[in-house]
């Protein structure tokens, strides 16, 4: 077994270094799909997070609790629900989105929304309340003072974006259920790893896993570096 793994790692390196088409193809598709999903999710999650974090409305705890609970939603479960919506007989069937990259993008965007919202809300909440008074007494208008608070929350909000992207690129359930892992169309890193491993192509799976880990680790490393600054 150890021998098989060692051999797999060696072949995996060859696949990466030689620029194997299937490996490169799945990698770039993963980056494209999860990147787009993150941008999409961020476009609504950050404003929503700011609203929840800075607002003081009735039911705030309920809303926060909802997003908190959604953090741990099983990807396969969400994939199944969205599958039923997007399948031909489903309410959104007329758009023919099932088994397209767009379907995965939408699915992942929904999946990571709770992370982005929760992290952003926490970032805004953790800014000292005195910052607003400070900005005002230094001459800021009400709007400028609010902006000052948001700027203080920016580094942590950036964390939210990275964490969301990492969850999107590393998930399997949504990509599998909505994309179907069609080569050259919807096959991404995680679905290829699962598929190739069941077929016995360990070296291929290992190569993709190494790439996936490299992406996730280097982003986490970058975040840690920024945090310390």
């Amino acid at each position, binding site marked *: 077994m150890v021998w098989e793994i060692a051999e797999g790692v060696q072949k995996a390196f060859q696949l990466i270094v030689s620029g194997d088409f299937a490996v490169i193809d799945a990698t770039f598709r993963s980056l494209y799909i999860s990147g787009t999903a993150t941008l999409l999710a961020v476009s609504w999650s950050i404003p929503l997070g700011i609203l929840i974090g800075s607002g003081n409305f009735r039911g705030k705890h309920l809303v926060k609790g909802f997003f908190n609970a959604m953090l741990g939603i099983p990807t396969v479960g969400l994939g199944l629900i969205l599958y039923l919506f997007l399948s031909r007989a489903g309410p959104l069937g007329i758009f023919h989105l099932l088994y397209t990259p767009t379907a995965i993008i939408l699915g992942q965007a929904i999946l990571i929304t709770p992370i982005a919202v929760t992290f952003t809300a926490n970032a805004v909440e953790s800014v*000292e309340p005195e910052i607003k*008074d400070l900005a005002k*007494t*230094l*001459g*800021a*208008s009400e709007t400028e003072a609010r902006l000052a608070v948001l700027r203080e929350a920016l580094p942590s909000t950036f964390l939210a974006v990275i964490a969301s992207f990492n969850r999107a690129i590393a998930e399997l359930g949504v990509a599998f259920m909505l994309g179907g892992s069609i080569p050259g169309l919807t096959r991404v890193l995680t679905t290829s790893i699962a598929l190739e491993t069941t077929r016995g192509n360990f070296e291929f799976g290992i190569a993709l896993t190494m790439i996936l880990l490299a992406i996730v680790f280097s982003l986490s490393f970058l975040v840690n570096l920024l945090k310390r600054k």
Partner: protein
Amino acid sequence: MNLLTLHNIEKRYGNKLALCNVNLEVKRGEILAVVGPNGAGKTTLLKIMALIEASSRGEMYYGDIKISKDKIEEFRRKFTMVFQKSVFFNTSVYENIAYGLKMRKLPKNEIKQRVQEALQLVKLEGYAKRQARKLSGGEQQRVSLARALALETELLLLDEPTANLDPKTVSIIEEAIADVNRRMKTTIVIATHNMFQAQNMTHRTALILNGKIVEIGKTKEIFTSSTRLQSFASLENVFSGNAEPRPDGTTIIDIGEGIKIQAAINTCGKVSVFVMPEDIILSKRPLISSARNVLKGTIIEISDFGSIVRLRVGVNGLSFVVQITKRSFLEMRLNLGSKVFLTFKASSVRLV
């Protein structure tokens, strides 16, 4: 000529009355001290004067002009406030000081020059590139002051600018304050419970107790003639809070910062109380005794008076002055930062 006039100012938080019918005139070019115990309403008063908090009732005038709600942002730029607890944007010292100047749309080279001048005033030349939040407490307070001075506002409001600071930092801050008042004719209001500071730095003094200005006048006169100020000035450990009577005849007083003390007085409502430094027993472990009040704190200041030692002990956000003998001090191996317990009887808590 008055720079700022407060007319019947009242401030409520829920149903708690923080300020009650405050009438106050701040004269152009003066240094006015606002003295009073913790929780008397000094900070609230300053925040209202700085126009960062709205009063619940009453009016304010800039000269003869009434400060109306729609003009607040315009008037706010004529004043600035330095908070007791330093607050910083998470960036460099330079950017912190430059913020207010940028809000005023000053040209870049003037901003640069003013930041440098302000840093010189507080003796922190060369600190511009440092991260503000990583400075020591004393340095932070000096940067806070520099940030306010750079704006060259007509009125400077300082909330306990030298509380809990070392003597060197205190003298730098006091010098800078006196300097801008002399050179720039900046009007200054200082909230303080440091009587020495009030007596030596200011032209006029207002005494505030339980949200009311009970006395105001020339500092020299008020310090020699006011019995209330004298009695307050000679007292340590003065706290204000809401008293709630208990069925057993004692009273629980909430003095803020989550601290409740029990007093053998039968009273209710807002009260000011004090505990004599020599009535407090200091120990390293909690004592089992008949005394009703036990608080846990940290030593934040030590002053040596020969055979006795006075310690300032921080308990949450408040501080208590405790007096012990030099011998106990040495035997207990106390130091700055030592964790200690303060114990005092309910009957040691007296009304001001």
